[in-house]
């Protein structure tokens, strides 16, 4: 099973996502350690999460 399907099944990626072909290529090239980490961390992958109102809002820093 490709990473994309695994991550959709795990709820990390929405089934009705807007991922580009390049995004899907990146996701399918992730190592199993990365896929497992995303699932364990209950991460959320996808463009619909990226476009925020305050993308410029300050992060934590070093």
């Amino acid at each position: 099973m490709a990473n994309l399907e695994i991550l959709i099944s795990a709820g990390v990626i929405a089934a009705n996502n807007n991922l580009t072909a390049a995004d899907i290529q990146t996701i399918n090239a992730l190592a199993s350690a990365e896929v497992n980490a995303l699932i364990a961390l209950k991460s959320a992958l996808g463009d619909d999460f990226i476009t925020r109102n305050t993308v410029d809002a300050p992060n934590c820093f070093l």
Partner: protein
Amino acid sequence: MHPTASCSAAEPAPAGHGHLLKQKIRLASGELFLALDRFWSQADVAARYPELLFHIHCVVRATVPAMETARRNAEARSPADPVATAMAAYLARHIPEELHHDDWLLDDLESLGVARETVLRRVPSPAAAALVGSLYYWALHAHPVAWMGYAAVTEGHPPSADYLVSVMRRTGLPQEGFRTYLKHAQLDPHHSREMYAALDAMPLTREQSSLLGVVAFQTIHHVAGLFAALTGPQPPHTAA
């Protein structure tokens, strides 16, 4: 031995590690952006800002010691491990640039009415311990290149000076309370470019490239958690 502990026997990863890491971070940053969005959109963000600086101080006071730990481990693995050799050189160059940022934060907090002694006496935040503690683990027990996965997240989304000015206007907080953030708005883009250039030049194995992704995903999760903990119905109490 951890699979990332040695690069000698593994197959090299394709070129463009920096670009690949950026792509992974972009895809996984939704949780972080959502937490940032919620924190900075709060109507009472002025009351919460000193507490944010306290939490950031908890992280930043540990940055240089964590980098030193990674550098010493990288030196110990060098010269048999070319990635460790490159990491030792990178960290030796970069550590001086990170010195005293914790003091800058204490100055900012003082200008907001929070005494230095109060900050230093408080028990550090669990969110900071989780964030930096995991970095120690990765840098010591996996590979010191793990530092780059952490730095790519913490330096890869620099604050915007325009946004900081808008927060000052909205909250009425003094500019003196934002000096560290404003300096990072200038410094981080440069640090980020330097870091990605160093990463692109490293002969990473596939396992090391994956390690960067895992560390970056965990860093995103912990930083998002730090901001989420400061978002909610009750503003946190920051003792003056």
